[in-house]
């Protein structure tokens, strides 16, 4: 599989100052408005890890993953793959190495093709296999995603949502990609099926050494599958750390609010972290820290000065002027300070 991976020091994929702005015309006004979908993202995905990307709708997480499979072009910034800068001219070559699984298992498969045809497509397009070898490979892939060769003759219309998503995964794995992007790949599924697909992805990571970018709005799902988590808000990354750190002791107020808003029976009657209003319009983002109008911890400095994403603690990047205070609150909420990393007050 990914035996020819990069050396341990070079990440598989690096994003530098990646920017994607859309020009949209809204209503009857003649002048196009700029939507800052992705606004200067730095991110590195190490070989063999599952990086979770979490955020609410409109935060730019899908746009970011679509730029990686070149469904969107960059406005600024650079994407490096195995240390080399990605060039538009090499698009087709790169497509063999980065594959994506889409959110909607119904619309992402062509309804008129059989499962065998769908999974064989990438191998035929790149002229890798044919005849009996191709059939064998498709059968193997079907077994690998837990379906089995009996499914090859069926059409997508004869499959359930979970089975369709398995076909989508088999199709993405056909080219033995180095990086698999799962863009809300389990969001449209029922929880019992979602759990099956999450476990399948975990097994594939273990068996095939897959590197994965797992994009979702559901922080519980992201926590379950990821090694590290990046939290996005309005086109920017606000926190990046190990999955356990982000989930258990969030150091950005937005991450805290996101965690706290997840409904659960334990939350009954408990006051929430106060986050007022709706996410601001990405056409007109706030000054300073983009979260300040909704942030319960906002100070004057947040309104004027934009906090950079910097490494507050080893392996833990936060874009907040008061990350240490926020982390202390999270630790206290957890019922003890033992989980707070050393050097909080450094």
């Amino acid at each position: 599989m990914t035996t020819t991976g990069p050396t341990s020091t070079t990440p598989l994929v690096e994003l530098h100052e990646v920017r994607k702005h859309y020009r949209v015309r809204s209503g009857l006004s003649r002048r196009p408005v700029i939507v800052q979908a992705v606004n200067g993202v730095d991110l590195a995905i190490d070989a063999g890890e599952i990086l979770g990307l979490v955020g609410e709708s409109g935060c730019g997480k899908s746009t970011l993953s679509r730029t990686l499979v070149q469904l969107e072009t960059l406005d600024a910034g650079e994407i490096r793959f195995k240390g080399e800068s990605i060039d538009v001219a090499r698009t087709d070559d790169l497509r063999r190495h980065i594959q994506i699984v889409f959110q909607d298992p119904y619309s992402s498969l062509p309804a008129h093709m059989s499962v065998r045809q769908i999974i064989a497509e990438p191998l035929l397009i790149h002229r890798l296999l044919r005849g009996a070898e191709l059939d064998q490979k498709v059968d193997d892939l079907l077994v690998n995603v837990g379906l089995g060769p009996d499914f090859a003759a069926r059409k997508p219309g004869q499959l359930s949502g979970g089975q369709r998503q398995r076909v989508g995964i088999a199709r993405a794995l056909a080219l033995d990609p180095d990086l698999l992007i799962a863009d809300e790949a389990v969001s449209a599924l029922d929880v019992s099926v979602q759990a099956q697909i999450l476990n399948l992805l975990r097994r594939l990571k273990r068996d095939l050494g897959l590197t994965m970018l797992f994009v979702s709005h559901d922080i519980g799902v992201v926590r379950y599958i990821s090694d590290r988590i990046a939290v996005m808000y309005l086109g920017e990354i606000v926190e990046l750390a190990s999955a356990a750190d982000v989930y258990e002791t969030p150091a950005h107020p937005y991450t805290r609010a996101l965690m706290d808003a997840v409904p659960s029976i334990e939350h009954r009657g408990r006051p929430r972290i106060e986050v007022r209003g709706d996410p601001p319009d990405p056409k007109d983002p706030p000054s300073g820290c983009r979260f300040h109008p909704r942030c319960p911890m906002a100070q004057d400095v947040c309104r004027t000065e934009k906090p950079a994403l910097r490494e507050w603690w080893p392996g833990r990047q936060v874009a907040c002027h008061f990350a240490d205070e926020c982390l202390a609150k999270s630790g206290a909420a957890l019922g003890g300070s033992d989980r707070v990393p050393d050097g909080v007050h450094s």
Partner: protein
Amino acid sequence: MTGAANVTMNSTPLPGRTPRVASSMWRRRTAVVGLLGLAFIVMVAIAASWIAPHPPGQTDLSNVLAPPVWAGGDAANLLGTDGLGRDVLSRVIYGARSSVLISASAMLIGGTLGLITGLIAGFFGGIVDTVIMRLGDIQLALPFILIAIVILGMLPERRPHHLILVLGVPAWIVYARVVRSRVLTERESDYVQAATTLGASGFRRIFRYILPQVWGVLPAIALVDLSNLVVMESTLSFLGFGLSAPDVSWGQILADGRGSMAMAPWLSIIPGLAIMFTVLSINLAVESPGLETRRRLWRLPSRRATRPAGDTHPSMKPAGSAALEQPEDVLLSVRDLAVDFQAHRDSPAVHAVRGVDLDVRRGQIVGIVGESGSGKSVTAYAISRLLAPTARIARGSVHFDGTELTEMPERRMRRIRGRRIGMIFQNPTGSLNPVLTVGFQMVEAIRSNRPMGRKQARALAADALRDVGFGNPEDVLRRHPFRLSGGQNQRVMIAMTMVVEPELLLADEPTTALDVTTQAQVLDQLRRVRDEHGVSVVIISHDIGLIGEIADEVVVMYAGRVCESGPAEQVLLDPQHPYTKALLSSVPTPEVIAAGNLEGIPGDLPDASAIIPGCPFAARCPAVMDVCHIAVPALLPVPAGQTVACHLYTTEAEVLQR
């Protein structure tokens, strides 16, 4: 009068419903007539040289303008002869050949050109699209018939291929427009994007992915175009720009008869009837069900359906339901409710709800939780009688404050809906009118339920908006729904529903389209509405966490049945039914993550159209026993405190009851 109910044996006619089931049957029948008519014309055209009694151009000047046989003519010329003594029947038969050949070929040329240009314009977009579509616009602006006359008039002799080209080429734009708009939508769809990420070339994406999806629209357009071409060909011939002799088409015969219309009216009437018959057949054939995009059976419940009177199956009631008593403060009581969907008389019925028991007390929040296909939403739509026309309440009762809703006339039901039972749907923007301001819609809603002046209603609306957390309600009232975010619209919907002060609020996935931070605010509002107004709420969601946070009582549904119900803490923290347990261990909550692996539930939902003799969860249940496959477990109280429909507890519970 027919309706959704006519799928049953003993249906009762109910006024005011769309006869869609019957209409689809009717459409199929008319389409068959149309297709038979078309087949007849094509056969005549093919067999012309064998069945025509005379050659079409054979003149007989001794027998000109002979009348048809019913007007005293002789049997040698059944439909009489024309001014040159040619046999009209033979000419009509040969005319079918020319008319069909010219129209069908023109249609194929136009269709092919249109398909290609439409694909190119839609797929490449940009300047290519602009040039192609503007050319089409220019062509449409030109008077087609005049240009055709100029072109045809310049030709010394007009042969079929001339007419085919003149008629066929300009038809491209009709196809191109439709194909282009379909390609534009398909191009952006996930499966084409997926093909792009696989590295598929543009050519491959067009022909292997998009074309098979676009195909489907063509036959219907082609048939409409064909009938148009038949008329167009006849018009040109009638004006004297049709085929030159000796070729003959219907329009040609019509033109020949023009001069002797007073003396021999049949010369114009007979080809006219042939043209009419052809056009009619084509238009009937367009009705073929295969030519329309298939409607989904389940989606968009929008219209009401009642249960046909006397159509109950008391024998199928689970044993336990009769035992449940109704305390005083129960506002809504549902017993053994079952709902079937059936699109056609001959298609299998989908059993969406297979017998649900549910009680809602005053001021209580009841959460119904289940996965897709559990029947949770259909239950809510059945309670408010807003089921799709293909659905019917098969059995069971819905008691609302002492009144039976399933048999209530629609007019009375309408008064209860909105005033006493409020509904909130998943998609708030779809429930609000985008072109009217929030204020206008709220005032209308208030005044249609409570007699009061406009000013007073507006003040009430402003108060309601303040109640759901809007700081500046006057500003919101002036806005249109599209200027508000999804969360704001959902809160407007809640305010609008609440201002009428219903006793029961049915909320179907009210926060599913919203982000978690917005969802939290909407949940707070729902809770306040209950606390301050004592409203009963039925909230339906797939999100167990959400139900756990807001509901007092939880009902867990699977495959159209209730598996477990009871107080929220009891059901969700100490579940007894194997499905509830499996469901809870499938959600990645902090506790589940700490415990290790997500369990998931192997397998899939049972077929919704199957009759399940036993427990619907049996096929996926880790604790399955023999009895589970043969007997439906009754919903009975268990020692832990909730009611459970599971054979693991049946004997124990039965002992308890005695």
